[in-house]
């Protein structure tokens, strides 16, 4: 009996320390997510203005011939950039993103394209390495606090592959997690290049586009604009992924803390039960012993 009490108490202590850790992780994630959302908001003006500028250039010139907007006739290789986190403790965050990337790989394979993988985040790198999947380039160490320099580095690598004459890629896809709200984050796969130009009669969602005069010319502007546009898209996706990672972590750690607290409650009841049983047993042993003694002395008299 005494042994069982000791075991239960040891388990309570273990669960308590786990709860402390998960609670701390939850608090860290909560405080960081505010910063991550601020960074997303701060990055918005640049990304919005660039998107508008691209819309303006593309809508103005009827005949654009730019490698970034042209569908290759026989695409053979497609780059897939996958954004994952550096640390675990984030619930299904990485699993969801990686499942989305597997789906995209299948989709590309069905179209007869060979996927070329670019992975950011330690968890994603480990996942691919474990499955013996070839990765062309990997980055890690900035999943929670991505900087524009990180996005530019990734963009440069991807664009080099895209513009390479030999062994290049014909398409660039991005798999990341969209931050919809604190409660909802959705993995998504989208194509970055070539740009899909949609012909619509509807006015642009950002209002009518100004009739810009381009200096020096629409082609030169587009040339300079598109790489920046891709970098800004990747940067924004990285910021969203960071916010999503933190939101997932906060939720996962809150669930873990709640579970640990429930478990502590159950175990405490168990421990009390065991203690009470022990006391009851001791009392009955004493009473039994006393009775036996009384009975013995009564017979001897």
């Amino acid at each position, binding site marked *: 009996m005494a042994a069982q009490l000791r075991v239960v108490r040891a388990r309570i202590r273990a669960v308590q320390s786990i709860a402390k850790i998960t609670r701390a992780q939850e608090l860290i994630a909560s405080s960081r997510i505010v910063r991550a959302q601020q960074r997303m908001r*701060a990055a918005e003006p640049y990304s919005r*203005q660039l998107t508008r*500028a691209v819309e303006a250039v593309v809508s103005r010139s009827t005949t654009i011939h730019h490698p970034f907007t042209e569908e290759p006739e026989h695409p053979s290789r497609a780059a897939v950039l996958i954004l994952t986190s550096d640390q675990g403790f984030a619930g299904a965050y990485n699993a969801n993103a990686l499942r989305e990337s597997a789906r995209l790989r299948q989709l590309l394979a069905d179209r007869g394209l060979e996927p070329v993988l670019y992975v950011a985040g330690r968890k994603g790198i480990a996942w691919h390495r474990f499955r013996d999947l070839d990765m062309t380039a990997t980055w890690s160490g900035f999943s929670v606090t991505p900087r524009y320099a990180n996005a530019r580095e990734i963009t440069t690598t991807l664009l080099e592959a895209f513009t390479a004459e030999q062994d290049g890629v014909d398409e660039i896809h991005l798999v990341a997690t969209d931050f919809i709200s604190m409660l909802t984050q959705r993995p998504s796969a989208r194509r970055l290049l070539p740009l899909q130009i949609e012909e619509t009669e509807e006015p642009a969602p950002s209002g009518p586009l*100004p009739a810009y005069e381009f*200096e*020096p010319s629409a082609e030169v502007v587009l040339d300079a604009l598109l790489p920046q546009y891709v970098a800004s898209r990747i940067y924004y996706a990285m910021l969203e992924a960071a916010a999503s990672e933190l939101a997932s972590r906060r939720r996962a750690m809150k669930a873990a803390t709640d579970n640990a607290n429930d478990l502590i409650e159950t175990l405490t009841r168990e421990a009390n039960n065991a203690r009470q049983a022990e006391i009851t047993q001791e009392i009955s042993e004493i009473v039994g012993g006393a009775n036996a003694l009384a009975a013995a002395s009564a017979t001897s008299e």
Partner: protein
Amino acid sequence: MTLHVALVVPDRELWSGEASIVIAKTTEGDIGVLAGHSPVFGVLAEGSLVEIQSDQGTVRAAVGGGFLSVADDEVSVLAAQAELAEEVDTAQARERLDTALAEAGPGAEEPTEAKYARAQLRAAGQA
């Protein structure tokens, strides 16, 4: 009539406010923008200065390259790298200029990094 000016870099809005004139340098040459200017979208010269003049004074910034967009009295300077003159760390900028030049070697064309560092020094009034 005033211009609404925003100087934005990828991770934040560096400066925004009202101004009477914006002077920038595109790859084609200097451009001055007053209220009522026709819509223009230009590519900024690498490592140039942007000057925003208003009643409250002049704001100077070094940009490492980017774009200038003018439409409906809204001026946006979009730059991958930019820094306001008063925030420039001159010692650091000079150091980066020297390393960039040393790496490029004599006679070679100045790399963007060097042009940007030079612009930072010019913005801070030390070049």
